[in-house]
């Protein structure tokens, strides 16, 4: 009896292996498990066995039936899943086709750089002020300790509007305007356009600066170094190094120009075996002018330079944007060529 069951099991396995469809399975099921199926008959025959044989053989027969049932169910489900998969695959999209072109406008790189600079200073506690572009000579020059017969005026190629008005040559007059209207402490920045009469191809007659100044009872040159280091490292990365060099501005003293380690060569002066052109192989890039506000400036706004001190700085945004994004020609910034603007 056991041998018969083993033979039948092998036969059913063969039959199932040969099945290719649900119909085949059904035929096999009926042939072996149906009312007149061969396994069914064998199971009926169990009752005729000797009582001591019955439990063992019955167990074997039941196990075989369970196995066949499970096998049939598993095959049915597998085939069903395969058919579903096949069906869905026929609905296939070409995912390599382009997506919908959603319209999207770009921010101008100057605005991006200006906004970033402003946001950094605001986060440090500075407030934003604006001033007129058409400025009087007093605020642009005299109040900033640049008298009319001082050679420092040569540093400013000025556009004249009438006998007392000019286009501001820097954002520094906003310093005067803010201090004229407020008492210290003041932490202010003044972003905006400035104008110089430069025919040079490396200059634009209009460009942008962010002026900043801090006036309080005990502001030091060390504070200037600290604030500008924070700004530069947030703007250009934490590993950017700074170098403070003595310089001259009539409205600050001591005055400094601030260089940052070259954004291209990192200060190594060379890239890819050749000398770095961006920093002209100096390893440094000039980025800011700054200094301690000159006592004459404080006197012009009615502050007592013995009581308050302060620092001021100015950063050229075109230069920042050009260095940050690797732009080599300043004129690109004002041509509004979409091939350029789309990159930002």
């Amino acid at each position, binding site marked *: 009896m056991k041998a018969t069951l083993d033979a039948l099991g092998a036969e059913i396995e063969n039959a199932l292996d040969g099945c290719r469809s649900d119909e085949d399975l059904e035929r096999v099921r009926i042939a072996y498990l149906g009312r007149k199926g061969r396994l069914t008959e064998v199971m009926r025959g169990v009752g005729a066995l000797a009582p001591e044989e019955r439990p063992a053989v019955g167990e074997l027969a039941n196990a075989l039936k369970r196995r066949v049932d499970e096998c049939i169910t598993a095959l049915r489900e597998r085939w069903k899943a395969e058919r579903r998969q096949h069906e869905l695959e026929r609905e296939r999209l070409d995912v390599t086709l382009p997506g919908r072109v959603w319209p999207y406008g770009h921010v101008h790189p100057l605005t991006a750089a200006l906004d970033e600079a402003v946001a950094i200073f605001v986060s440090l506690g500075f407030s934003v002020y604006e001033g007129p*572009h058409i400025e009087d000579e007093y605020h642009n020059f005299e109040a900033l300790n640049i008298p009319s017969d001082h050679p420092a005026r040569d540093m400013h190629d000025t556009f004249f509007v009438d006998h007392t008005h000019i286009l501001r040559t820097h954002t520094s007059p906003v310093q005067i305007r803010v201090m004229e209207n407020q008492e210290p402490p003041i932490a202010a920045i003044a972003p905006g356009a400035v104008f110089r009469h430069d025919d040079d191809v490396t200059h634009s007659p209009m460009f942008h600066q962010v002026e900043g100044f801090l006036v309080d009872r005990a502001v030091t040159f060390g504070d200037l170094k600290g604030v500008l280091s924070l700004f530069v490292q947030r703007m250009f990365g934490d590993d950017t190094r700074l170098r403070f060099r003595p310089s001259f501005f009539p409205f600050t003293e001591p005055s400094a120009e601030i260089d940052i380690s070259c954004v291209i060569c990192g200060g190594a002066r060379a890239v890819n075996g050749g000398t770095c052109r961006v920093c002209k192989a100096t390893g440094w890039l000039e980025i800011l002018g700054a200094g301690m506000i000159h006592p004459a400036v404080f006197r012009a706004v009615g502050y007592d330079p013995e009581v308050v001190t302060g620092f001021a700085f100015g950063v050229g945004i075109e230069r920042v944007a050009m260095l940050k994004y690797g732009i080599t020609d300043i004129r690109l910034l004002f041509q509004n060529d979409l091939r350029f603007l789309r990159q930002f």
Partner: protein
Amino acid sequence: MKLTLNWLREFVELVLPIDELCEALVMAGLEVEAVAVHRPIWGAVEVVEIVNVAAHPNADRLRLCEVRRAQGPLVRVVCGASNMQAGDKVALAPPGSDLPGDRRIERATIRGQISEGMLCAARELALPDDATDGILILPPDASIGRRLVDYLGAEDTVIDLAVTPNRGDCLSVLGIAREIAALTGAKLQVPAPALREDDPPTTSAVRVAVEAPDLCPRYAVRVLHGVCVAPSPLWMRTRLALIGLHPISNVVDVTNYVMLERGQPLHAFDLAHVANGRISARRAGTRQSFVTLDGVERELIPDDLVITDGRGPVALAGIMGGADSEIRADTTDVLLESAYFTPAGIRRTARRLGITSDSSYRFERGIDPVATVAALDRAAGLIAGTASGTIARGVIDKQVGRGARLPTIRVRVARVNALLGTTLTAAEIERPLRALGATVAGHARAALRVVPPSYRSDLQSEVDLIEEVARLSGYETIPATTPAIVAGGPGFGPHRDPEERFRQTLRTCGLTEMIALAMIGAEENRMFPGLPDLSGKPVALRNAPSSDAAELRRSLVPGLLQALDVNRRQGEPLVAGYAIGRVYACDGERYHEGKALGIVLAGAWPSAVIGEPPRPASFADLKGGLALAFDRLALAPVMWESLQNEAPYLHPGKAARITIGGVLCGVAGALHPDVSAARGLDGDTWVAELDMIRVVQYCPRRIVFRPLPRFPAVLRDVAIVVDSGFQAQQILDAISEVAPPLVEEVRVFDQYAGAPIPEGKKSIAYSISYRASDRTLTDEEVNTLHQELVAHLTERLPVEVRR
């Protein structure tokens, strides 16, 4: 300011290698713009002496020279020139030496005679030409065997320094040498010229008067007799050429040389053309014209300082000499001037006349008032040495009072440290000041009494000296600190948030930000006068760089149209841009600066998905973008109405005026076809202009939440047939007038013309939403309301409801 290392070495020992020296100068505030090493290729050329000159046996035009070198036998050289004779020192390029122009000299046989090298002409060594035919004849002091580059100083390093306007003292070799001495601790040495003076005395040749001591505190002269004007010696010409100066003649070159070396501008007059031997420094007194030595006729005003002779002006003091009294080839007697002119006076005149000379540049920045005579002596000595001539006995030195008074400045130790954030002691402050050449007179723990050196006219106050302490100690030694910023203030200010939201919305709609220059042509300003609110005339620049940048813009539209043009040329199918910026006008004496927004939109939106056609940009795009931006700012009520006469550059039928809360805030529409045609634009170009100050002003300061409706809305549509000239807004207005309170919203959702709508008519469909806040409306209730509304509408307006 260019100078050479060899020149510097005459005043200070250079203990640092060039790289470190440059670094030290940069970190002291003297920016090194360039370092150029000059190492002529003809380094092997040497000084030899001609022993014998003979004719070449086989060629009439050649000579055979025997020359003596430092060592070895005499050598024979074939030479094509004939200007040499025995005893002359000349330059030999021996076999194997290189010359400019890729020439290599080898031993050669010339017409049967062996030539052991070549005797060089100045031209062949690319030296400043001495205008003589033939080979270079060197002065007798050239020693045999010396390399010519060494003898002439042609092998040298030129440094170009950027000198800030406060450091007039650094506009000379001596000044830079002083700075190097202060920075490196090396000792400065200034050789004192040994002058041989001869009779007659200077006073017998010239009388000097200073009549404007305020403009000319010091005026000194010397006289040289029997001068022979010729090219200056080759070493001087070589050095001048190295720093980019064109040599002129010995007398003139010396004045330039001494100016570059000492920082004292000098002027040489031909004494024969100084009428009556009288020199006076005085104001011009009257308006007059004067021809400067560059041949230009200058208009003088009474206050200009001039140097006059017995007849009239001979020089524009400190700026430029006159044509009549300049040094010429036949000059024999020279009047040499060394003066101190006050900076402001020189600058006023130079600026008014538009002249910048090396001389005026230095006077404007302040020269050393004490070094006047030292420089004069140096120049007189050099002229006597190079142009022969004798120096008349004595200097005439007219000085106001007892000369320059140097300030005594109190430097408080506490003040130094308070400003710098340092903890320097009095001694640490004193050290750098002494290194600069300042005298530290009084010395207490709390303050120093400091007298700056005469050549540092920029050091006038305590803070000037604090800067010097910081500069020489090194800014890098000052510790960086982070201040506690306690100042209150508006932060970003009230405008930034709405403005930024506006910009962002426009970008989301596909508009790219553009920035154009604020200067435009006058024609553009006439064509695009900007928003009606910007009253007044355009602002013109008095020194405009060009006619297309003659005025400040009144509108952002021209700049955007220019961008359109640039991008059209690139073949961009769609140009969609916005700009926010200032616009300018002038109302009498007052200037207005507005803030405007401009938009340009032209071309076709590229197909969004493959297969869909590109879509031409339309008024709906323009209005939709702006409407979204207004909505994002919660601006209400915004009205779009037909243009009246606000913007003549717009198409009268295809443009709108935009009001917010009843106030005109901008215009939007198609460019007038005539304007388009004039610019070569085809198709519709959509533009908009907004007054951003008003937009931001009307923008609510905060967003206030409205509770969500609790009961559903019920929608009813109505299609209305009207004359095709009817505007959708008219019916919207009418509906809102007759609408019962339960009408929540009325929206246009369709427009249709064509059969079965009669010709000349169109149908506009509105969707009306009814909602009650306290209950769900029933269909019957809404039907009744809707019928009543439609009935009221047809009573009020000549419209027909489409069933």
